[in-house]
């Protein structure tokens, strides 16, 4: 049972970015402009710390891509399941996919009662 998932299109983009940049990570952003969007970096580029929560690992071709979010933000998001998708777009901070003319995007749904019991209790 997972908090995070990714669409087949997003998995393809992860494969493409991994070929150029090596192992990857996601950190979910908040706030202005390009915020409320998952940022994709080379693994270790963004230093996570005690203020972050590890939401889970997305496994693409047997290789894990960790997904992180600030702990404070997580408190407001913990009742939702997140799926990383990709749409045509532009920009997005220093996220790796932007020059390809696409943006990772979060699609959310409420956790089921069963998921909530397993993940949040």
């Amino acid at each position, binding site marked *: 049972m997972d908090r995070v998932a990714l669409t087949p299109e997003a998995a393809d983009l992860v494969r493409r970015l991994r070929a150029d940049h090596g192992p990857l990570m996601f950190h979910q952003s908040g*706030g202005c402009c390009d915020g409320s969007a998952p940022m994709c970096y080379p693994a270790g580029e963004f230093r996570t710390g005690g203020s972050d929560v590890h939401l889970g690992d997305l496994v693409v071709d047997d290789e894990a891509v960790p997904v992180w979010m600030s702990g404070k933000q997580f408190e407001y998001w913990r009742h*939702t399941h997140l799926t990383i998708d990709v749409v045509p777009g*532009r*920009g997005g901070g220093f*996220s790796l996919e*932007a020059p390809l003319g696409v943006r990772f995007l979060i699609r959310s749904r409420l956790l089921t009662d069963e998921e909530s019991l397993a993940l949040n209790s």
Partner: protein
Amino acid sequence: MAEYAAPGQPGSVVSYLGRYDHFIGGEYVAPAKGNYFENPSPVTGQAFTEIARGTSEDVERALDAAHGAARAWGRTSPTERANVLNRIADRIEQNLEAIAVAECWENGKAVRETLNADIPLAIDHFRYFAGVIRAQEGGISQIDQDLVAYHFQEPLGVVGQIIPWNFPILMATWKLAPALAAGNCVVLKPAEQTPASIHVLLSFIADLLPPGVLNIVNGFGVEAGKPLASSSRIAKIAFTGETTTGRLIMQYASENIIPVTLELGGKSPNIFFEDVASSRDAFYDKALEGFTMFALNQGEVCTCPSRALIQSSIYDGFLFDATERTKAIKQGNPLDTDTMIGAQASNDQLEKILSYIDIGKQEGAKVLTGGERADLGGDLSGGYYVQPTIFEGDNKMRIFQEEIFGPVVSVCRFDDYDDAVKTANDTLYGLGAGVWSRDGATAYRAGRDIQAGRVWVNNYHAYPAHAAFGGYKDSGIGRENHKMMLDHYQQTKNLLVSYSQNAQGFF
């Protein structure tokens, strides 16, 4: 009503060039790797120019130019720099209409806003910093009879600035004016969503600045923004954007031990106390407009009043009237001066807003109006339009806690003063807030109790120069739009001078 012709069309007041390179050392320079990217207008979704795709090589070249100019520019007198800023303001004013239409076409915002807010505010901002730099004084402190501490302000040198896409020219101005006034040279990266309008502005002012004082490198965040923000050759980085990139920029800055200023957004509460509705007068009308301010600039404002808190005793009636006011917003071609709300700035922004409307509905929030993408027909069908949307729900919902950056307001009720302040402060952010009350004491107390850097009392979305703007909590570091921003672009030099002829007595 007037409808401006699109840039480049017959009768238009402005034309974009087919391509924009980097502006480095006073001239346009092709990107080192020779690549360009297309720039679409959100009005139609069609590309209208192409932009240099900058890389670290271009950033280094811009830093070379800036460092080459820094010593001479830093030694100009405040009067000389103030005169340059005033001339910039004059040129922008003389070409206001052209710049305003260019900004509208690139960003998608309604032209009435660029004509009456964005560009006039930018003009005033240059004049403001021209004034304050001339009025700035250092300090003299007499430590004792023979020992005097002189405090001088000195420029930092070369600074980096990364600009957001929601007010491309005004936000660039908020950063440029204080940096230039203080005597710094700048390497500026516009947002990749809105990289072109600043070059239209530059076409009117480039000759006023010595080569190398202002350098513009276009490109994507990861390819051009990152080499700038992580460079050991900048003395400061200023960024407006979101929290993860803000943290990443702080991490880079920590490697170089340089200061940062960050403006990272908000989820601003707009609080309506019951006495607002004690009379159906001009003030009540003003408060309804204050509610509707969530749709200004399509909601793409860091201080968008995206949470409306209405006191229970007036909740139903006020919300009904506010919903009617929202339904009266005229959405249309941004180039039409009657249009009140235009297009979202990019396709991914549109998609993100729609994804938030989706989770809002899933969480059980009720849509009172809007809630869909808008199709305006004709050429505008390819543009990125969202209906002004009012949700009714609970402050714990995601739509109450995350910045949607679209024309979406989430409404909830409160019972009393303490309840209002508690809900208002139940957020990660603290950039803006609104308080509406006919009672001065209530408005004052609420304004002081809300943890936000800017609290509008009985008004909203006013951004005059000389009113400090910046965030509490996760909304960032620093205060723009005020002379105190000079402190963020200057070093303090202390000369500690002894006028005594006698040894200090240690050896």
